[in-house]
């Protein structure tokens, strides 16, 4: 592990390069006027030293393992080299383990021992190579930058150009994230759909992702009809909306229209606390307190409630969403101009009448958008349902029954040991893709609504 040391050395050298460039410029300035401030010369040297080296190091980090592996495999005896891919992978990881002094999964043979030695020697050569190359590149960059430096040299413009490129690059990270999400989900989902038809996934009524381990196994053919999951997600989200919309909207109305400043300044931060509580805490609360309370309440009125009822998960999720709903609607209600309210008061309407007939209709597009955004948050919420809702995939409209959601099953499929490439694991990505597309569509629709129906008052 010489990489951290190398990075440290390079960092120290970079500081040195900056000061060297600057002092060189100061010396030049004694004979003739400089175009740029001396520190820009320093930055210029720094750019030429640092950027190529960073590029080299990233290439190295990305490619080293691959190259070493290729060389090690090429050196293996014929019999080992022609192993099937997964066994070869196992062998390589064993070799790597032995090289680092860990316990390998299989006993060492003379061949693997030779391979380990080869691996270690390659790694050592690689270390020397990366040290030498990066230091060489660093010095070469410094020399090149020095050769360009004259009093008239436009160092500031060069440095600013580089900086602008870096700024553009970092703003494209968001785009790459989206591309990464779409590609990774799509790629794995397509592999799933190659084994299981899309239509059966979207419209099938049974979800039992157990696939047979042996061919002759009974009753575990694997059925990936996601409708029960969609239905459960809708049920729980709908319950949460039943809690969040009235409470969130009414508290937003009260806060922006009625509450005196003193109340507002106390209640608003408290609602923000509610928004900052991690979802895992809500999940624990739902499972520990709310679900048993609902079950005993239902028993008291003679109803049968499951201990993992959709109602418990939905209600707690609703509480979690209240602050989102209320702060989003608060914003749009506050944005309604006062002239509308005053006009209404002038006609003799009471405050409640003004709010109901004038303010809310004016704020409706924003409130619709707030609703859609809150709903999409409910669809994607994971921890509460993982902890408080069950795994049983049944189609039900009874809130006291157990329901499950898409997110519960994504995490159930992927947490813990997983076999890569099985339809079971891949189906999680198909679910993830569905979730991503649905929430994305809802968000786009919400933005459309705001854009299209927003009243321009001034």
């Amino acid at each position, binding site marked *: 592990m010489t990489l951290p040391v190398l990075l440290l050395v390079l960092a120290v050298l970079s500081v040195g390069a900056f000061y060297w460039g600057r002092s060189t410029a100061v010396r030049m300035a004694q004979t003739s006027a400089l175009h740029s401030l001396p520190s820009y010369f320093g930055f210029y040297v720094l750019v030429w030293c640092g950027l190529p080296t960073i590029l080299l190091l990233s290439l190295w980090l990305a490619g080293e*393992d691959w190259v070493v592996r290729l060389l090690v495999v090429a050196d293996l005896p014929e019999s080992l080299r022609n192993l099937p891919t997964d066994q070869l992978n196992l062998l390589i990881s064993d070799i790597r383990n032995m090289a680092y002094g860990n316990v390998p999964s299989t006993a060492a043979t003379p061949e693997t021992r030779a391979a380990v030695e080869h691996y270690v020697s390659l790694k050592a050569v690689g270390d020397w190579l990366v040290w030498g190359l990066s230091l060489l590149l660093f010095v070469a960059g410094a020399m090149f930058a020095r050769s360009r430096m004259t009093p008239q040299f436009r160092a500031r413009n060069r440095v*600013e150009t580089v900086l*602008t490129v*870096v*700024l*553009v690059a*970092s*703003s*494209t*990270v*968001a*785009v790459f*994230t989206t591309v*990464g*999400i779409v590609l*990774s989900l799509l790629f794995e989902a397509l592999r799933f759909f190659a084994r299981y038809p899309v239509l059966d996934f979207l419209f099938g009524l049974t979800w039992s992702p157990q696939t047979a381990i042996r061919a002759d196994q009974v009753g575990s053919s694997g059925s990936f009809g996601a409708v029960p999951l969609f239905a459960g997600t809708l049920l729980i989200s709908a319950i949460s909306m039943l809690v969040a919309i009235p*409470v*969130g*909207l*009414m*508290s937003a109305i*009260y*806060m922006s*229209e009625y509450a005196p400043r003193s109340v507002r300044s106390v*209640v608003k931060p408290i*609602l923000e*606390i*509610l928004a900052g*509580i*991690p*979802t*895992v*805490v*809500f*999940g*624990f*609360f739902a*499972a520990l307190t709310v679900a048993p309370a609902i079950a005993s309440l239902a028993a008291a009125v003679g109803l049968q409630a499951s201990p993992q009822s959709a109602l418990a998960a939905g209600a707690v999720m609703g509480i979690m969403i*209240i602050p989102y709903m209320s702060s989003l609607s608060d914003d749009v209600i506050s944005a309604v101009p006062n002239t509308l309210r005053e006009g209404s008061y002038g006609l003799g309407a*009471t*405050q*409640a*009448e003004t709010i109901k007939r004038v303010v809310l209709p004016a704020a409706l597009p924003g409130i619709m958008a707030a609703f859609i955004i809150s709903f*999409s*948050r409910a*669809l*994607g919420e*994971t*921890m509460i349902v*993982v902890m408080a809702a069950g795994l049983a995939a049944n189609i039900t409209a009874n809130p006291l029954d157990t329901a499950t959601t898409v*997110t519960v099953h*994504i*995490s159930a499929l*992927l*947490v813990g040991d997983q076999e890569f490439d099985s339809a079971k694991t891949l189906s999680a*990505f198909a679910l*993830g893709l569905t979730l*991503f597309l649905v*929430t*994305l569509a809802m968000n786009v629709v919400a933005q459309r609504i705001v854009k299209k129906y927003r009243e321009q008052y001034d």
Partner: protein
Amino acid sequence: MTEMAIGGPLEGEKRAASGIHTSEAAKLRLKSRYSAERRFKLYGIAAIVFALAALATLLFTILGNGVTAFQQTFVRIPISFEAEAIDTSGKRDIDELRRGDYAALIRSSLSKQFPDVTDRLGQRQLFGMFSAGAPDQLRDMVLAEPGVIGQTRDVWLYASSDVDMLNKGFIDRKTPEQSRRLSDRQISWVDTLASSKAIEKRFNARFFTGGDSREPELVGVWGAVVGSFFTLMVCLSLSLPLGIMAAIYLEEFAPKNRFTEIIEVNINNLAAVPSIVYGLLGLAVFIGFFGFPRSAPMVGGLVLALMSLPVMIIASRASIRAVPPSIREAALGLGASKVQTVLHHVLPLAMPGILTGTIIAMAHALGETAPLLMIGMVAFLVDIPSGPLQAATVLPVQVFMWADSAERGFVEKTSAGIMVLLVFLLAMNALAIFLRKKFERRW
């Protein structure tokens, strides 16, 4: 509902003449309108009270369940450190001391203290009153001070979780013996020990300094705190510079064209992507494609950085936008270049706002659980991680894992873990509010 039924202007005048605002019907109408007003206001108050009550219930549940976890029940028994069990060769060899049978020391002390318990079941139950970590406690004592061998000392040992629960009053003595985790005999022994003041609740330091454990009485949050620290550091060191630079570009340099519009729409949409999808991204790209180790804070930090980046960009942009144009114009007028204007004048003035947004985004990242489940940070780990590439878990995931455990003893530990998490979140938010108050500028 309160319709104001006014007809045409002529009719209205006629009614006004006959006292439209003073008639009995008008008074009733007004009354119902006013009561509708009061009702509506009441709904608003009810909504807020509901939200506050929910928050209060949640916090009180956590507090009520968790506060006992900071104390742990210990049992005092005289242990004679006999050399036969732990140091047969008598050479005080470290390896041998490490392998010694410390459970035997406890057993022999118990048989001396409770000589009437001779049946196997009874002896097992007697020994079962101590934590599985009690022998380790003795071993650590001997390793720290080998001179103790051959002596007899009173030692406070960790009680088992069941005894702990009984001592804290969570086990109802009235429930029938079969449905209780402690037998009648065990309860009577506990009472005997309690009457001789040999059972005591003490401050549970291990909870703050230890790693995870299978035994609820031995768990600690420190491993998760360290894991969270590494994860957040990776997240911060990526998302802060990237977020600021992207915000500067979009706010100060970006021309209005298709490219920047795509970026903006993109950022807004990314902020609304469910967090679990980021977990899938991390699993497929960082672990599947780049081959990073599973469970590492490095990967967790990367995923959280991508997740909090849009939030950081949006917050930083708002803060940069709040710097008045006059500042920029003054700098440009004095001959500063565009880059100099932004770096020397706009950015320093926007920095407090950016930092506030950053802290809030980090607080959010600290509480995030779902994406970290996807990348395998749910491993059971006793050791404290020592670097961002080692397997680790984070606080909320630790809470999740404890919440998943069935034993009664884990309920209080889960709540206590949540309390630790909430204290960190509260501290971060308080810092953000403090910064906002201190550096807030009105232009």
